[in-house]
């Protein structure tokens, strides 16, 4: 019915760009979307209100932590702990408290910026206007994601003074702040990307915001619950021999032996030849036998996906070899990291005398868990963004029920 006819394109509209030009054009499209988004955000009052609330909240956390530390030290002055053996100063405490709250609030705030990015445009009727231009779905997603990420990062910037305050109070290096901020930024990025992806899949802003919050809750709490439940199902065995605690003084029987049923509770000092491994505190001895245990390493990946674990695990803690005895000197974040690494290492590394070896009290920093966690988070995010990209493609094939393109 019609014949194909080539017509000159409109002035300035070069539809067949070269390879490098193509890339530049793609980037230009992203920056145009991002610029438009940011401009809109910077003009909304809500953003500034949220920023100031944020500033006040984090400030409160920092001050309260500092005050409580002061109170604590005043009390310990009268106790038996000599002041020089106390933790280095309020620095680590403030730093960790601020960090924890920044992450916590960040996880709460980030969906608000991202989860209506596309569903909001859809309900305002502006999405189709962008889709009908030469913008590709990828450019839309990238632009919206970067804009929401930048908006979320402003919150990190606002909390930097308090983190610096923690550093000034002593005990921590500047590198801490840097890595902590980097990881916080990464986590906010993950949440923003999830939000943008979900917003492309949802029809109404409210729905996408709620779903994004649920996903964040799933990452923060769901991973813990899933890890717990998964651990219950991960029963296994580990080969280990007996442990002999050197410092425990057993009441010796008059004849040097324990009789009857109680003998198992009173292990005899092992022969030197039976000892497979020992340190100052205890020794492993005897033949290897199968022990029932929980193979936590099978479900540790669930724990690894937790944003708090990722941030806690990525921070480089000072080596504890020097202060080997002070097991309790580490902060909350370090404990989180250690706990997660314990479950990741599994009974083979942590079960006492597994394979006849002394289990280390403190896992070294050389086996980080966060790359796995962040990697899994990115994988999930990439999956959702992939679906979002499909949903934004036009001409649209299938539409969700009740959807109107424009």
């Amino acid at each position, binding site marked *: 019915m019609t014949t194909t006819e080539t017509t000159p394109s*409109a002035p300035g*509209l070069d539809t067949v760009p070269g390879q490098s030009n193509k890339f530049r054009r793609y980037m230009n499209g992203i920056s145009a979307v991002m610029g438009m988004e940011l401009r809109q955000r910077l003009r909304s009052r809500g953003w500034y209100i949220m920023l100031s609330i944020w500033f006040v909240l984090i400030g409160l956390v920092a001050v309260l932590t500092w005050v409580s530390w002061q109170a604590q030290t005043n009390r310990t002055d009268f106790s038996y702990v000599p002041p020089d053996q106390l933790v280095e100063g309020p620095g680590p405490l403030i730093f960790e408290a601020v960090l924890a709250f920044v992450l916590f609030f960040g996880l709460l705030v980030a969906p608000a910026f991202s989860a209506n990015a596309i569903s909001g445009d859809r309900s305002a*009727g*502006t999405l189709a206007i962008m889709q009908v231009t030469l913008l590709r779905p990828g450019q839309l997603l990238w632009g919206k994601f970067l804009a929401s990420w930048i908006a979320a990062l402003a919150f990190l910037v606002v909390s930097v003074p308090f983190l610096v305050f923690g550093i000034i109070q002593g005990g921590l290096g500047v590198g801490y702040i840097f890595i902590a901020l980097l990881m916080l930024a990464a986590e906010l990025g993950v949440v923003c990307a999830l939000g943008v992806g979900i917003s492309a899949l949802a029809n109404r802003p409210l729905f996408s915001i709620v779903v994004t919050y649920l996903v964040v809750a799933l990452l923060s709490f769901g991973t813990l619950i899933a890890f717990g439940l998964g651990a219950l199902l991960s029963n296994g065995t580990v080969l280990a021999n007996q442990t002999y605690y050197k410092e425990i003084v057993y009441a010796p029987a008059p004849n040097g032996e324990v009789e009857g049923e109680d003998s198992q509770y009173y292990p005899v000092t092992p022969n030197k030849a039976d000892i497979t491994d020992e340190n100052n505190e205890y020794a492993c001895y005897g033949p290897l036998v199968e022990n029932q245990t929980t193979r936590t390493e099978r479900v540790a990946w669930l724990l690894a996906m937790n944003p708090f674990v990722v941030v806690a695990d990525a921070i480089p803690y000072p080596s504890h070899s020097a202060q080997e005895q002070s097991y309790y000197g580490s902060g909350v974040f370090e404990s989180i990291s250690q706990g997660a690494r314990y479950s990741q290492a599994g009974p083979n590394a942590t079960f006492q005398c597994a394979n006849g070896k002394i289990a280390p009290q403190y896992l070294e920093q050389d086996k980080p868990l966060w790359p796995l966690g962040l990697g899994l988070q990115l994988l999930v995010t990439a999956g959702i963004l992939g679906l979002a990209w499909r949903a934004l493609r036009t001409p649209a094939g299938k539409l969700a029920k009740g959807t109107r393109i424009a």
Partner: protein
Amino acid sequence: MTEFLPPPPATASPPQPAAQPSPEQLAPDGIFPPEGFRGLSAKGLSRSFGSVHAVVDMELLAPAGQVTALIGPNGAGKTTLLLMLASLLAPDTGSISVMGIDPVKDPTVARAKIGWMPDTLGVWESLTVREILTTMGHFYHLPKAGIPGRVEELLTLVSLSPLADQKARVLSRGQQQRLSLARALIHDPEVLLLDEPASGLDPGSRVALRRILRNLAAHGKVVVVSSHVLAELDEIADGAVFVNQGRTVLAQTVAQAADQGRRYCIAALDPAALAEALGNLGVEFSHGTVRAESVLVTVGSEVGAAKLLQDLMAAGVAVHDFGPATGALEETYMSMGVEQP
């Protein structure tokens, strides 16, 4: 006599083939035979959303250099059709050609040629008019240096220059509508798809819109306008496509209009004498739906109209009104027997 209002015979659907093809009547710019057709065409289009068949079987020919009206009741599938033409929605069946390009297969190339103005306003409220147009220029990858000039040009075209630095949220509905038109024109598209462009416009803006659309058509653009303000379309459209319940009911595009005469409205001081004279001349006529004392006749061509007027004068009928029936599209529309779902 005056209560008797028979449906206008020539425009009742389906179109009746008339004896004398006269292509120039609805195509004053010239003849566009389908084989050399240049413009926007669609055939056999259908699209359903779940169990709702929004578009069942639509056909459309919108030649370059013409304004084609898309007319139909609410829910007839006009917006769905425009969405498919604008490359936003994939048709279930059928084919579309935008200046020879299939928007389903090659949306990017097609989009460079398409300007689309949706029926929903959809403005970024916190951006200024100038920012919106500039951003759209970036979205179309226009050369950066040329964008400010182009934006200025369009602001003048739609008379929004005084409001250029106002936030879009403060604009009135009509002003937002004009902004929407400018937005659709930013990349100088060859095909312009307008969904209800006149709604919310004041009379002055309507005249301006008409002038803009006519001017675009004069520059060889394809202009498709959906509307139900029919009096409006009479004056700007060269052809019309009537749709109802997802189907093209009547296409008064060049090809089909050739088979259909034009209706003239005649009024005389003495209606009886007029009726008698027409009877003697063997001209079928019906009584007008608008003015009771006038009659409607179908005339094959303008030459035929001139001849008829001469004959009536010769017969001594005191004709005081002789002209193309106003609201022709409106009458066609009413004769379609549209049922509101």
